[in-house]
């Protein structure tokens, strides 16, 4: 039985990453899901991106392969991995050295907090244009 699975991650590579081993790791990912790896030699990074129907086993192996890629070839920064399974909400998680991941989480939480405040401010601005006794509707809180 197949499920729809989406994953996105951008891994910045260590300058001394073993090119042959990296090529083998990417080939293994391509074997799992073709056309899912996008090396960018100019930026020294690899993007893993795909949205497909696949078996649950394949989706788990793909996610594990992305984590291994970050662990083995990453430059020591936290890597954000975004996944989505069919009707589930999109999830974001971080992999990398503990200190880098804590810093990335802190920045991410701050960004989410700002987004909540901005969303509320946008709704309040719109509502402020309405008379205080009116029946009103918000735009919607994503």
């Amino acid at each position: 039985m197949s499920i729809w699975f989406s994953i996105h991650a951008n891994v910045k590579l260590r300058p001394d990453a073993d090119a042959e081993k990296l090529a083998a790791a990417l080939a293994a990912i391509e074997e799992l899901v073709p056309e899912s790896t996008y090396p960018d030699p100019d930026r020294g990074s690899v993007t893993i991106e795909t949205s497909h129907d696949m078996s649950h086993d394949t989706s788990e192996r793909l996610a594990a392969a992305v984590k291994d890629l970050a662990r083995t070839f990453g430059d020591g920064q936290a890597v954000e991995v975004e996944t989505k399974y069919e009707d589930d909400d999109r999830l974001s998680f971080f992999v990398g050295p503990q200190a880098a991941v804590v810093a990335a989480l802190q920045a991410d939480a701050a960004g989410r907090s700002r987004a909540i405040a901005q969303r509320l401010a946008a709704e309040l601005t719109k509502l402020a244009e309405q008379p205080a006794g009116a029946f009103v509707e918000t735009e919607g809180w994503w």
Partner: protein
Amino acid sequence: MVSNFYLYVELAGDAPTIAQSVRTALADFVYPDEYAMALEGDKLALEVWTCAQVAQAPLIAAVDTLVQRFVPNQVTSVYIEDDRGSTEQYLGPWRDVMTRLAHERQTRQAALEAAYQRQVRNLAHAENRDAFVITEGW
């Protein structure tokens, strides 16, 4: 146009009257097998789902009109899911909606803070700052 659409709202009042109004209001937008109504306590829950290309704005406007007609004096939440994600819209008297928004902000900030603290606590078990770790999804 979106190709996956789901909506949930609860309407209050005389159930047969609401049901007839819903059927009339939605007739131009979805087929009868693409929505359902069920009594939830003293409210009539309406669910709409469709995989057809649907013009979302007029459909939501039709539902909003139903809310204004049947639940004019309290805040009603309309939950919508589509290709882009999920959203919750609030309808009702101005002052009550303002209060609800402020409450929602507090709830979301508190949930975010709790999730963040849980993640950081989980990561604190790592052997050292360089240990390779994976957070929970959030």
